[in-house]
């Protein structure tokens, strides 16, 4: 078989721009007369703005405008009481932006902020969900502590309710009199049960009942969410930091109050998002309306400090797991309950997803899922890399090891016994199924890579004061959607121009997915031009660059468009050289009659022919079923060459999920609590590998993010004032390059998923959970089986455990 671009390492088309510093990220943009914006943030965790006096600021030379929540309401309409806007008169967390100033320099804008007097009325606040649901606990919102969505006669509505547990339920949940917390009763909002849970526990030979804690974690992408905007008549040019270009355009009405037809999004480069910039960012309205108000371009550079507040975070979980194991290690019952620290705005899906992940990952014979989402006066939450999945893996995987050790089963075996296979059912009423799950193959490959028997023998070995610990973990997550459009052009220069509306946040998927077309059309990669990051240059309707959808969804859409292109090439050749289209092949930058290379057209000739013929060849007429955004994109390209645009109408037999299984080895110093990660290996089932080098980057990069989550990153709030301190890279402590082994290995089972034309599935999500959970398992292995199921397991926790000391914070207390 000829070597394909799919599956081959390559230099992505943005490489030179990036390494030479020419790549323009949001805050690199400049425009004539551009102003700079700075924001005034709420100093209180929950307050109402009674009055704003900006007169002294406005009197300063160089200050051009002040934008308030009232101004935004005028431009965008009144927000709902629970809607998050770029600016607010009712801040619900310390650091929430209240107003913004535009001035000729950032320094003047900052000086102006200092001259503004805002009269805040402090309101009660809640930082810890368990404290809030305690009898008489503080509410985080005026009317309660939980945001719920409910169906009404006219549709869905979002309301707030007060959730309160009894003191008895709380005592059970938290533990009392030296006893650990246990699975509580209490009020939950989500609940479903599969199978006969009681029977499952009755059948169990060993039952674990544990409280679990997973901290909230800020996304902290390298690039903060800076944004520039200017207006050209009624058209707004937006330069955001976004994960998704086409969807930032589509969501414009909701995010900045500008409909897609009046919006042009420029975002070629984004320095990561991890789910926090899916359709742009919450602050985009600030430069948009300051630009509107002043008639000048406005740049809003967001600092790391501000990023900590408005940059989104993963919801923390206070949870409980009661798991029944049979003697052979099979999980007969899994009772899972979590309280989600939701932050003050939109209800997050993490807790619901975590139940699905339990169901899918371990395929328990019976299970119950319960979830409760409690709003807190802490920064807004958003999906973060495997939302709900990372929390679940990190909290549950160490429990599997405990069960394995108790039952005398190999830790790899217990995972292989409770495993999902192709077509595995999961979720509420087991109403969903995955397409493929080559997890067993991944475990086999990993066991081979690490020489599991040898690794096990190293467990517990002492080297001076250091003990070796080894850990295994698996993690899964969604890996693809479908139904989007592909758009491409062959130009009269004979080049293949592929347009994409996905974002370029450093994963290379914007170009990886295009290689499918080059393969299908047999165009060398050097002859492919990628056009991305600018909706003014024509983009198709592409998925959000989130939930690891892109690889699967956009290879499908690209394949559909490339197939359309191929058909059109064949038709054009047949029109020129006679015969039927099916007699023509597309190869070697030509379309020609099978067996007679001379009887055909070069790609350049085909493009010229398309322009000459017009109609369905040059984009004048387009296929049925295309999205309006694709139609708009095609209109930009019309008449420039041979245009192909097609919707992904391929079928799919289930939900697409990818998997990572991982091995971590550590040395833990029993005198200092210091952990050194000495080895990390990961194997994935993500379907066909598109770009090996980039896949390695995802597997290891995600793992490193997981390591930080496991042992380093922790929000710390002063409970008296409701103010956090871990608000920059130093205090937030994500893992650094010096915290991980220099050489980490990875592999992929590389089994194609039949639901994708090239067999690919996404891979962004699960590496983080695998990294996080395998490290925790290794720490537990080194410490012994009584390790607290707590994240982050920082030095103080480990020392206290080693010394048999009580922990300095209450186990389920958030942000301490």
């Amino acid at each position, binding site marked *: 078989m000829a070597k394909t671009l799919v599956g081959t390492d390559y230099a992505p088309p943005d490489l030179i721009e990036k390494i030479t510093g020419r790549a323009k990220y949001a805050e690199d943009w400049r425009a004539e007369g551009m102003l700079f914006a700075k924001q005034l943030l709420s*100093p*209180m965790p929950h307050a109402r703005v009674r009055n704003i006096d900006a007169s002294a600021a406005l009197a300063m030379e160089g200050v051009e405008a002040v934008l308030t929540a009232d101004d935004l309401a005028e431009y965008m309409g009144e927000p709902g009481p629970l809607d998050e806007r770029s600016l607010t008169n009712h801040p619900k967390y310390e650091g929430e932006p209240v107003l913004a100033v535009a001035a000729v320099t950032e320094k003047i804008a900052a000086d102006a902020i200092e001259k503004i007097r805002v009269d*805040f009325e*402090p309101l009660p606040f809640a930082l810890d969900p368990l404290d809030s649901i305690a009898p008489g606990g503080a509410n985080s919102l005026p009317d309660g502590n939980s945001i719920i969505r409910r169906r009404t006669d006219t549709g869905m509505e979002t309301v707030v309710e007060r959730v309160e547990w009894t003191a008895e339920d709380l005592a059970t949940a938290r533990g009392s009199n030296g006893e650990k917390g246990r699975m509580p009763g209490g009020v939950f909002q989500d609940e479903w049960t599969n199978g006969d849970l009681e029977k499952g526990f009755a059948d169990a030979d060993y039952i674990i009942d544990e409280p679990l804690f997973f901290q909230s974690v800020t996304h902290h992408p390298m690039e903060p969410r800076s944004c520039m905007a200017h207006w050209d008549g009624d058209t707004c040019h937006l330069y955001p930091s976004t994960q998704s270009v086409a969807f930032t355009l589509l969501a414009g009405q909701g995010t900045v109050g500008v409909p897609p037809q009046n919006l042009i999004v420029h975002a070629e480069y984004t320095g990561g998002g991890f789910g926090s910039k899916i359709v742009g960012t919450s602050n985009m309205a600030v430069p948009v309306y300051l630009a509107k108000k002043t008639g000048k371009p406005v740049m809003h550079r967001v600092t790391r400090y501000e990023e900590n507040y408005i940059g989104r975070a993963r919801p923390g979980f206070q949870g409980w797991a009661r798991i029944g194991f049979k003697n052979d290690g099979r999980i007969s019952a899994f009772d899972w309950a979590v309280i989600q620290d939701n932050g003050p705005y939109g209800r997050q899906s993490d807790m619901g997803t975590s139940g699905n992940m339990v169901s899918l990952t371990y395929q328990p014979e019976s299970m119950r899922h319960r979830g409760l989402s409690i709003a807190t006066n802490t920064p807004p939450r958003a999906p973060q890399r495997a939302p709900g999945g990372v929390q679940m893996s990190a909290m549950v995987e160490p429990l599997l090891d405990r069960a394995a050790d108790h039952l005398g089963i190999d830790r790899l075996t217990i995972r292989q016994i409770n495993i999902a296979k192709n077509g595995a059912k999961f979720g509420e009423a087991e109403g969903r199924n995955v397409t493929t799950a080559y997890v067993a193959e991944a475990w086999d490959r990993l066991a081979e890579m690490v020489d599991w028997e040898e690794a096990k023998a190293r467990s517990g070995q002492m080297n001076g004061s250091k003990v070796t610990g080894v850990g295994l973990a698996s993690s899964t997550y969604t890996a693809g959607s479908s139904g989007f459009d592909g758009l491409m052009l062959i130009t009269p220069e004979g080049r293949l121009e592929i347009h994409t509306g996905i974002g370029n946040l450093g994963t290379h998927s914007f170009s990886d997915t295009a290689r499918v077309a080059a393969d299908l059309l047999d165009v060398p990669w050097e002859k492919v031009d990628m056009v991305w990051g600018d909706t003014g240059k024509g983009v198709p309707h592409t998925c959000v660059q989130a939930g690891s959808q892109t690889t699967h969804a956009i290879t499908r859409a690209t394949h559909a468009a490339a197939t359309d292109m191929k058909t059109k090439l064949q038709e054009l050749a047949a029109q020129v050289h006679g015969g039927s289209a099916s007699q023509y092949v597309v190869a070697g930058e030509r379309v020609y009659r099978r067996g007679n290379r001379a009887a055909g057209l070069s790609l350049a000739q085909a493009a010229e022919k398309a322009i000459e013929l017009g109609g369905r060849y040059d984009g004048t007429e387009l296929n049925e079923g295309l999205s309006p955004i694709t139609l708009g994109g095609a209109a930009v390209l019309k008449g420039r060459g041979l245009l192909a645009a097609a919707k992904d109408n391929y079928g799919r037999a289930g939900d697409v999920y990818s998997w990572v299984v991982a091995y971590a080895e550590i040395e833990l110093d029993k005198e200092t609590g210091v952990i050194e990660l000495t080895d990390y290996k990961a194997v994935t089932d993500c379907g066909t590998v598109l770009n090996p080098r980039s896949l390695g980057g995802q597997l290891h990069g995600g793992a490193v993010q997981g390591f930080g989550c496991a042992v380093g990153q922790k929000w710390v709030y002063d409970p*008296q*004032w409701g103010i956090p301190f871990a608000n920059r890279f130093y205090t937030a402590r994500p893992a650094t390059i010096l915290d991980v082994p220099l050489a980490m290995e990875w592999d992929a089972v590389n089994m194609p998923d039949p639901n994708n034309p090239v067999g690919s599935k996404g891979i962004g999500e699960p590496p983080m959970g695998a990294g996080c959970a395998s490290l925790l398992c290794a720490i537990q292995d080194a410490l012994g089986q009584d390790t607290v199921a707590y994240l982050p397991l920082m030095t103080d926790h480990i020392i206290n455990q080693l010394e048999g000391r009580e922990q300095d914070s209450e186990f389920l207390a958030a942000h301490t």
Partner: protein
Amino acid sequence: MQIVQRATNPWGQDVLLGIDWSLFWIALIAGGVFLILHLALRRRWIGEEKKAAANAPDDPGLPKKIQRHSLASRLFHGVMGISMILLLITGFLPKVGLQFAWLEIHWITGLILTASIVFHIIHATFFQSLKNVWVGLSDLGDMMREMRKAVTGGEPPAKPGKYPAAQKMFHHAATLAGMAAIVTGILMMWRIEQPLWAQDDYKFFGDGGWGWVYVLHGVGGVVLVTLTVAHVYFAILPEKRWMTWSMILGWIDRKDYLRHHDPAKWPVSGGK
């Protein structure tokens, strides 16, 4: 010049922190100015006083030594005086640039002062006559006459009982300032580590309330600075030394008794 220090609290609110430490210098200067004024005016009457002292009446029927302060009172005064000086030194010197480990000395001395004052209150209430220090309308009149005499050289006030009006007023001013400093000082001990109770900086008050506690403590302190200057000054003035000695020895000479006190208002009940 600022009178109080203010700061922005973690919620961005403007709050009181305490007095501005420049008030210490003001208090010290105020004490000095008083001292200089008094010395200047003193020249006008000191000659007459000396003459009067030389021709002082005597009454051999009375004991030679008239007891003015009991041992308990003198001990209290000594403890209180030393405490006060120590408190002012440890309280103010670090604020004006002389750094040393002052805090423990300060609060321990503060507790000693408090204990001595509690003793004094009990002793004075149950074992002494509160009447002696009571300031009545006649005392105010005497004060006015005393001041008029000092400034214009008019008629002196009538002889007092055990304590002259000025001394009573001083006592009450010191009591007021001292009590402000003591009560607030005890509250402030919730904001430091000490063995008596658990530190809790948020107990009792919010930021604003605590700001007032610190202001009152500071105001009490600076007032005491001025009062101490005045007190020490009078203690070493030659014409007042009979009183100073009485605070050390407990008794006054019969002549001083007759010269400075009205036996009708303070009849002698004991002596040697």
